[in-house]
C-alpha cells in the first residue's frame, strides 16, 4: 500500500532540472539565431547589435553594426533607429518592434551572457550599453577556419561535451590530420603545465563557445557532430567528432620548402 502511495518520479529531479535549463539555453540560442537571420536579411553585413536598458529594464536598440572593417579600423554603423514614423521606410524589411521584443526576452536571462555573445560595449563612454555579437552564418566552417589557422593540416576535431547546470562544458581531445595522424590536445585540468597546446588559451575559449552552440542546437548537432569512440582516452563520456570541410592539403607541398 505504502509503495503505491509513494510515487517516485521516473527520472531524478536533478536530471530533469538540467534538461529544463538546457532546453532554455537552446531556446535562447535559437531566438538569437532567429534575430541574426532577420537582421541579416535587411543588413547582410550585420555583425553586432548595440543595445541599452532604460530605467524600466526595457531594451532599446541603438544600432546595427558591421564587423570590424580593416579599411577604416572600426565597425560601420549600418542602421540607427529613429523616432520619426515618417521615416519608417528606412527600416526596410526589419521589424524593429519585433526585434526589440525578442531582445528583451533573451537578455533577461543569464543564458546569452554565458554563451559569450553579450558583452559590455567596447567603447568606454558607453559601458552601460551592451554589445551583442551575432553568430557566424556557419559555425562549423568558422571552427574549421580557426583550428586550421593554428594547425593547417587539421581534418577534424574530436571533443567531449558535458551538460551542466551552468551551460555546456567542452573538452578538447584530439585533432586528426590530413596524413592520418592524430594529435592529442593536453587536458588543462590533468596537465595544466603542458606547453603542447596547439593554440593559445583564448582561442580555446572562442572555440569552446562555438562548439557548445553546435552541441546545444539539435539541428546543428545532428548535422555536424558524429559520436565516436576512443578506448584509450583518460576521460569518461561520449566523444564527438567534427569533420571539417574538405580542402586540398596546403602544407604537404609547403613542408618541402
Amino acid at each position, binding site marked *: 500500500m505504502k509503495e503505491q502511495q509513494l510515487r517516485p*518520479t*521516473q527520472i531524478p*529531479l536533478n536530471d*530533469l532540472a538540467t534538461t529544463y535549463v538546457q*532546453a*532554455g539555453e537552446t531556446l535562447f540560442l535559437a*531566438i538569437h539565431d532567429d534575430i541574426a*537571420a*532577420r537582421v541579416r536579411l535587411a543588413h547582410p553585413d550585420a555583425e553586432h547589435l548595440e543595445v541599452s536598458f532604460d530605467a524600466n529594464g526595457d531594451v532599446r536598440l541603438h544600432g546595427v553594426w558591421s564587423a570590424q572593417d580593416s579599411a577604416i579600423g572600426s565597425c560601420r554603423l549600418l542602421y540607427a533607429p529613429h523616432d520619426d514614423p515618417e521615416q519608417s521606410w528606412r527600416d526596410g524589411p526589419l521589424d524593429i518592434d519585433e526585434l526589440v521584443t525578442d531582445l528583451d526576452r533573451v537578455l533577461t536571462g543569464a543564458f546569452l551572457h554565458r554563451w559569450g555573445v553579450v558583452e559590455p560595449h567596447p567603447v568606454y563612454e558607453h559601458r552601460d550599453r551592451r554589445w551583442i555579437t551575432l553568430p557566424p552564418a556557419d559555425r562549423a566552417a568558422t571552427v574549421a577556419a580557426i583550428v586550421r589557422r593554428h594547425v593547417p593540416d587539421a581534418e577534424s576535431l574530436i571533443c567531449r561535451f558535458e551538460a551542466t547546470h551552468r551551460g555546456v562544458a567542452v573538452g578538447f581531445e584530439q585533432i586528426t590530420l590530413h596524413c592520418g595522424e592524430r594529435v592529442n590536445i593536453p587536458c588543462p585540468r590533468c596537465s595544466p603545465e603542458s606547453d603542447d597546446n596547439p593554440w593559445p588559451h583564448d582561442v580555446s575559449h572562442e572555440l569552446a563557445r562555438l562548439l557548445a552552440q553546435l552541441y546545444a542546437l*539539435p539541428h546543428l548537432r545532428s548535422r555536424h557532430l558524429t559520436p565516436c569512440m576512443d578506448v584509450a582516452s583518460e576521460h569518461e563520456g561520449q566523444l564527438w567528432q567534427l569533420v571539417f570541410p574538405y580542402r586540398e592539403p596546403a602544407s604537404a607541398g609547403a613542408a618541402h620548402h
Partner: protein
Amino acid sequence: MTDTAAHRVATALRHRGLAVDAFNEAQAQYEIAVLDHVTARIVEAYPKTTHLTFDHSTHDRTVEPHGLWTTHHDGTEELVLDVRGDADTTTLALEELAGDLSDALAGLHSAAWSAVRPDPRPDRRRTLDLPPADRIVRVAELVRARHPHAQLITVDFADDTCRVLDVICADTSQADGGVIKPIRATDEHPLWPEDTERRITALARQIHALPHLRARHLARVGGPDEHTAFLLLPQTHTHGK
C-alpha cells in the same frame, strides 16, 4: 541547397519553433515531477493528506504553505497540519517544501497550476489538490460517475489548455456490447459539470506532461498539426456486474 538570407530566416524560425516546444515540454515535465516529489513527501509524513492551502505572493511568486488537509467521505475537510501553528519540522522539511512548491508554480502558465483550484478560499488562500497515486484511475472514476460505460475520452491539448472533446462509450443496448458510441461535448449539453471538467483536464495535462504516463495512457490521433489524443480509461473489475 539554396542558402540565401531568406532561406536562413525560414530555417531559423522553424528551429526556434521546435526549441519553444522542447522548452515547454521540459518545463512542464520538471514542474509536474516536482509536484509529484512534493506529494510523495507529504503523503509519506501525513498519509491522509488530500490537499493543501497556501499563500501565494503575486509580487515575488513565492509559495507559503499554510495547512495540510484531508477530505472525508462525506465531503467535509479536516485540518491535518497547521504549518505555522504546529512547528513539527521533524517529519516534514517545510522550508524545502515551500521552495519546491515555489519552483513548480513559478510560471504563470506552469503545468503545476492545473492542480490548484481556480477560486481562492474566503481567506484568499489557494488550494492545491495533491495528485492521486494513480491519476488514470481517478480520471476513470470522474468520467464514469457521469458516463458509466465510458471506454475512452478524446482530449485536445492545443495552446497550453486542455479540454475534453468527447466520451466514447460501449453501447450496452446491443447484445455483444462491442458497438461504440461517442458523446460529443457541446455548449448546450456539456459532458459534466464545470468542476468535473476542470479536474479531469488537470489530470490529463499532468499525464501529458510526464513521458512515462503519456506513453502508457495517451494515444495521439489526428494529423501532425493537431494535438488531440485518446485517453484510455482502465477497465474496472466491478464493471458490468
